[in-house]
């Protein structure tokens, strides 16, 4: 009820404004604060919203350590049924960024970019605050400045004014350089939690999904040495690996789109095989190190393309398949990710183009896996004593993708060559008493003989040479 009252109230202000400042032929298009608070927060899961906050810390780490070694950097997330906090030592938010960009809704076109940043749409941090609670406090110390701000969301909503006058206020700030490196970082506190986060924070399943979401999304920065913890539990990550041996070698391709232009986009594609896990098979896509697609088995990454002719639909036989795609660009807005960073924007030209390359890179792997499946089936049916392809998989160790040899195409052993005409199995069921009659008539004892003799009979009597 309180909310509705406010909306009406806000509407009144707009009407007044309309009368005073706008001409008769102007149509209003300015957004309202409610729009940002209520609509934006619906598009994102709570765990994703918290991962977005960690993105800000990672961006700080990237500014602080452009070389990419994050050893010693930490992000600590804590929450209870009364408050949420995230504390990092990742370099802090410079005051100019805070003043002009970090708290704006949407990223202005002229905003300075953090090299290879993961935050780019200018919605993440604010969206998370609004999703969590009604009061937030940000304290940040960077090398060149420090600031503190507090926002009471309800009060802010009640401030009147058009969008160009929307603002927050610093409680305190300083533009003195900070020499003690230890304190450099950001502390965020959210209180007056909303019901939804309050409830979720008490659920074991939520904590678990947040941990796994963070570990996946930030697998690469974890690999670079950063430590991330949730309520004191440190994240572990599985390194990205593929099988490699002298017989099996993953494919690796890299391409830089428009190297002569500012902010070229670099794309790296790996495709190969790993352990057979049905849920893990598929494509993994990263944008500036952030995993945006995990184990995808859908047409988004090419599965089932051309009604399954260009690339087959995902199938348990392909559970060995792993593909990793890395998009990197200094200008994060050129990357093909969605605003929630939980998917790719399949309509972007860069993704469309790379997707073709992904299909092309995957095909030889899938061909090998099909040959493997048919060998395994033959072994299971007793037509073959051993699968040579399976043996070469078991002899191939896991290798971190950063240490792989770089082959343009997937290399795998060939199945033993077939001699004579190609064979195909036929299987069918018939009533037992009829089978017995045929058996007796043919004077044979096995079902296999029944099948092949009746087939031969048909060929001899019905088919022309």
């Amino acid at each position: 009820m309180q909310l509705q009252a406010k909306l009406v109230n806000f509407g009144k202000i707009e009407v007044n404004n309309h009368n005073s400042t706008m001409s008769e032929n102007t149509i209003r298009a300015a957004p309202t604060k409610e729009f940002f608070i209520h609509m934006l927060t619906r598009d994102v899961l709570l765990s994703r919203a918290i991962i977005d906050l960690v993105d800000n810390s990672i961006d700080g780490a990237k500014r602080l350590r452009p070389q990419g070694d994050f050893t010693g950097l930490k992000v600590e997330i804590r929450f209870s049924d009364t408050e949420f906090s995230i504390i990092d030592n990742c370099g802090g938010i410079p005051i100019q960024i805070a003043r002009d960009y970090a708290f704006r809704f949407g990223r202005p076109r002229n905003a300075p970019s953090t090299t290879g940043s993961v935050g780019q749409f200018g919605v993440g941090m604010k969206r998370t605050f609004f999703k969590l609670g009604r009061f937030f406090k940000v304290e940040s110390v960077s090398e060149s400045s420090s600031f503190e701000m507090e926002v009471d969301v309800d009060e802010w909503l009640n401030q009147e004014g058009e969008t160009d006058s929307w603002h927050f206020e610093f409680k305190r700030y300083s533009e003195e350089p900070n020499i003690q490196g230890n304190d450099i970082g950001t502390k965020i506190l959210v209180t007056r939690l909303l019901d939804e986060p309050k409830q979720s924070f008490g659920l074991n399943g939520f904590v678990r999904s947040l941990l796994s979401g963070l570990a996946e999304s930030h697998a690469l920065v974890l690999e670079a040495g950063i430590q991330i913890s949730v309520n004191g539990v440190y994240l572990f990550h599985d390194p990205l690996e593929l099988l490699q041996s002298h017989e099996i070698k993953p494919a690796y391709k890299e391409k830089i789109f428009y190297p002569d232009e500012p902010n070229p986009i670099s794309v790296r594609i790996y495709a190969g095989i790993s352990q057979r896990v049905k849920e893990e098979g598929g494509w993994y896509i990263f944008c500036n190190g952030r995993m945006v697609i995990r184990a995808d088995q859908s047409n988004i990454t090419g599965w089932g393309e051309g009604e399954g002719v260009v690339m087959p639909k995902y199938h348990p036989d392909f559970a060995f398949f792993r593909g990793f795609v890395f998009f990197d660009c200094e200008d994060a807005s050129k990357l093909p990710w969605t605003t929630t960073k939980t998917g790719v924007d399949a309509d972007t030209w860069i993704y469309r183009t790379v997707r073709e390359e992904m299909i092309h890179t995957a095909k030889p792997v899938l061909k090998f896996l099909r040959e493997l499946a048919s060998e395994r089936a033959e072994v299971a049916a007793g037509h073959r004593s051993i699968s040579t392809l399976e043996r070469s998989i078991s002899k191939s160790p896991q290798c971190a993708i950063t240490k792989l040899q770089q082959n343009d195409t997937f290399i795998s052993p060939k199945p033993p060559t077939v001699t004579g005409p190609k064979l195909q199995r036929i299987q069918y069921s018939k009533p037992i008493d009829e089978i017995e009659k045929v058996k007796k008539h043919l004077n044979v004892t096995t079902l296999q003989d029944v099948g092949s003799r009746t087939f031969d009979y048909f060929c001899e009597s019905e088919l022309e040479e």
Partner: protein
Amino acid sequence: MMASFREINYAVRPAKSAERKIMAEGYRRLEQGWPLSSYRYIGMGSIYFSDFLVFHQALGIDRMVSIEREIEHRKRFEFNRPYACVDIIFDEVSNVLDSIEWDSRCLVWLDYDGKLELSVIADLRQLVQNASSGSLISISVNVEADRPPSNIINVKEQDEWRLNEFEQKVGENLLPVGLSGADLRGKLYGKQCWEVLNSTVIDQLVKRNGRPGERPDSILSKQVFHFRYSDGVPMLTVGWLLYSSADSPKAEQCNMTGGIFRSDSTPFSIEAPKLTPKEIRHLNAHLPSGLPVSRATIKKITLDTGISEADIQKFAAVYRHYPQYCEVAL
């Protein structure tokens, strides 16, 4: 499936034979833009290798790949290899296209016996995705309309059946917008196949080129071949020259227009009337005369021989390429 080389002797299909020679003539124009010796030919030679013979003899191309799926008959194929420069690769077309290195210019002719279907479209996509600037890629398919089963008598239901059948073959995405079953009857069928093939090329080039806007390395396509012919079953061949924007002037120099070339939906029809050797010699003596053959010449020939005007026009369009057969003891 019966190996098709055992069913058809490719060398004695007269329209096909003419088509090969016409294509060789088309390929020769490429010399204006790119040296023919820089090309590699990729085809499906079967055991007759008729296309390989023509293109090696007429164009001097000496890097040739024949794709062959019938690995069980490997020995026969290798025995019939016409020249040492022909490399026979035994595998499915799509696997071969996957493994080929695409850095050099290619003349590719995927000459299928069967109808247009998803695997054909997938192969064409692979070609368009990979072929380098200056390549000419062609594809031939059987365009005999699907015949509704005899228990469907109602015309409307027959049309529904046709549409459904076509959709199953080519997939929903490439189906021409607004297509109805009536558009797939009889001779109209080939036109729709042509539409689908063209959409495939356009669609794939968008994917290949990526960022919108033309840049020097953007690949463009120009349809150059569009043949219809029949040695019993109606066939369609479409060929496209692929070239980079930077190579546009070269593509222009090749001047692949007029004559045997077709850039639109109207095909060049390779069709020869049944004529006796004596009639052929007589007609040849009046050719070339430009097309269409002048009224006066027609009148004269008809008066002498009794051959109809339509047959004379058809013959005049292909007379240089049309084969004549006679029996010889080898």
